[in-house]
């Protein structure tokens, strides 16, 4: 991938953590003989992201997602491996690099808590050396896209979590970063606000062509924004490819949901596929992907069907299976993309 804007090559991060057993005796013993454990947070992760791509970074808690983003944004030094973002080695933290990136963390605020967000924006304008005209137009755009108007003059501590997150996003984007790292940007905000933030990120990507690397526990964020996902678990990369292909590999079946004119027993319906749910006239059948068309054809021909839909299994189910350790099925050609 020669036009990669973000590239990682064998990136590893190991934390050395002091550990001891519970109790007074072991705490005294640890004074004389401290024991450490190496925690491998990120192991040999390699991937590339092209300019303008939006990539979802998936993994359970402790998978290594945030550590990877921190290394890519220059906050952490890796234990080994290489990474380039916009041609820079992130952890050297050159100002020219920092001017072109942003890391938004849902659990961390860069805005000063005690003063209105607008004051923090003005500080960012100076720090990032944003010309007045560009600052004004970007701010107007952000105010409009995020509906910030009434929020800018309130002290940040008086804002709701969702309002604060919108201001955080605006603060992170005032300098129009070319690479945006979003770490759980919708954490804790309500469904409406989640949707608004998703639309905003999508619009920002469309308008500016920024590259976005996103982590989220909400699959809806990822499905709405990213066609490509990178799955990481126990610090190792498990999958890198399209979201739909991941579903196809992990769960090689589709779901047929049919609303029948009259109820039928499960054993009669089982000839079309595995009956996973039966509620009166409503039935859900699981069929192999390759046989979906045949099953639908038979069902329509042999039964009076009021309504019928064919769906992929919920992506949450796919991800759950991946994290439960059923990973053999996803190691394929996409891994090396």
């Amino acid at each position, binding site marked *: 991938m020669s036009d990669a804007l973000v590239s990682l090559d064998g990136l590893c991060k190991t*934390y050395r953590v002091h550990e001891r057993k519970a109790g007074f005796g072991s705490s005294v013993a640890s004074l004389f003989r401290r024991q450490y454990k190496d925690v491998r947070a990120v192991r040999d992760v390699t991937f590339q992201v092209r300019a303008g791509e939006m990539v979802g970074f998936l993994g359970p808690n402790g998978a290594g997602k945030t550590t990877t983003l*921190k290394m890519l*944004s*220059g*906050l*952490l*030094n890796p234990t080994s491996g290489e990474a380039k973002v916009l041609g820079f080695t992130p*952890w050297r*933290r050159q*100002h*020219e690099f*920092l*001017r072109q*990136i*942003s*890391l938004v*963390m849902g*659990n*961390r*605020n*860069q805005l*000063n808590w*005690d*003063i209105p967000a607008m*004051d*923090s924006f*003005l*500080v*960012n*304008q*100076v*720090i*990032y*050396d944003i010309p007045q005209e560009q600052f004004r137009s970007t701010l107007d755009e952000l105010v409009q896209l995020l509906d910030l108007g009434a929020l800018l003059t309130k002290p940040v501590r008086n804002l709701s979590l969702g309002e604060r997150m919108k201001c955080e996003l605006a603060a992170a984007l005032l300098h129009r970063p070319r690479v945006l790292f979003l770490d759980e940007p919708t954490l804790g905000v309500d469904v409406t606000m989640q949707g608004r933030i998703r639309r905003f990120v999508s619009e920002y990507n469309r308008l500016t062509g920024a590259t976005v690397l996103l982590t989220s526990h909400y699959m809806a964020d990822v499905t709405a924004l990213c066609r490509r996902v990178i799955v990481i678990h126990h610090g190792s990369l498990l999958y890198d490819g399209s979201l739909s292909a991941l579903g196809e590999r992990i769960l090689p079946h589709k779901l047929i949901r049919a609303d029948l004119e009259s109820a039928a027993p499960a054993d009669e319906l089982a000839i079309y596929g595995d009956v996973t749910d039966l509620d009166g006239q409503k039935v859900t059948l699981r069929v192999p992907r390759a046989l979906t068309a045949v099953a639908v054809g038979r069902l329509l021909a042999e039964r009076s069907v009021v309504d019928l839909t064919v769906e992929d299994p919920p992506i949450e189910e796919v991800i759950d299976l991946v994290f439960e350790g059923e990973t053999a099925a996803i190691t394929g050609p996409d891994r090396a993309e």
Partner: protein
Amino acid sequence: MRYWLRVYRVHLRVAWALMMQYRFSTLIWAVWGFVGPLISLAVWTAATQARGSGVSGNGQRFDQADFAAYFLVFMIFGHLTMSWDAFEFAYRVRTGSLSPQLLRPLHPIHADASFNVGFKALTTALLLPAWLVLFVVLHPAPPPSYANVALAAPALVLAGITRYIWQYALAAIAFWTTRVDAINQLYYVLDSFLAGRIAPIALMPLWLGLLARYTPFYGMGAFPVEIALGRVSLPAAALGLISQMFWLAAGIVVFRLVWAAGVKQYSAVGA
């Protein structure tokens, strides 16, 4: 240059906004800085009154009015050169709130230094009337002359910057140990003695006075005070300034080394 002026101006505005927000707390901290020299003054005044005469040491003599002059000037100079960043910085490292600052194309020291300058400018203006009252009541002798104060100005500036840099270098130890407060406390105690905050250096035992003069503490504390009071000869003042510059340069080198190594250690706890 214009960029840096704008950076410091915008941070000063934020600093003042925050101080106005927490005006009572700001005033308490300012008063705290003034109380230390006042306590030392009370102790030495009591000592001279008990002896019925002044105190001499290493060729210098201090009577009640001399102590008043010394500690009154120290009150202002100490306030103008004070630094508390080590405590704040450790908190930021511990909680991970340093992370957003490290992601900006500006070293965090600039925002902190602006805050430091803003705090001193505001609180000095607030406390000056109280200081003038003390000046009138305590009859310091000899009162500092304008010429001596002008001579002390470069030493005072160097003292402030040097103290700030060394404090920040100390603060950066928080990258290794999140409980850096104990080290800060030790530093504070050493500083209290060796900078001449508790007693004039001349009145200290010879070995302690030498230790003070061969460490950065004297230059960061008593030296500009002694110049302002005319207690330092011109050659000694010139030598003192050179010593200050040496410690400033050393502080910058140490700070850069500690910082560079420290950020590599940073684990961005919780952030």
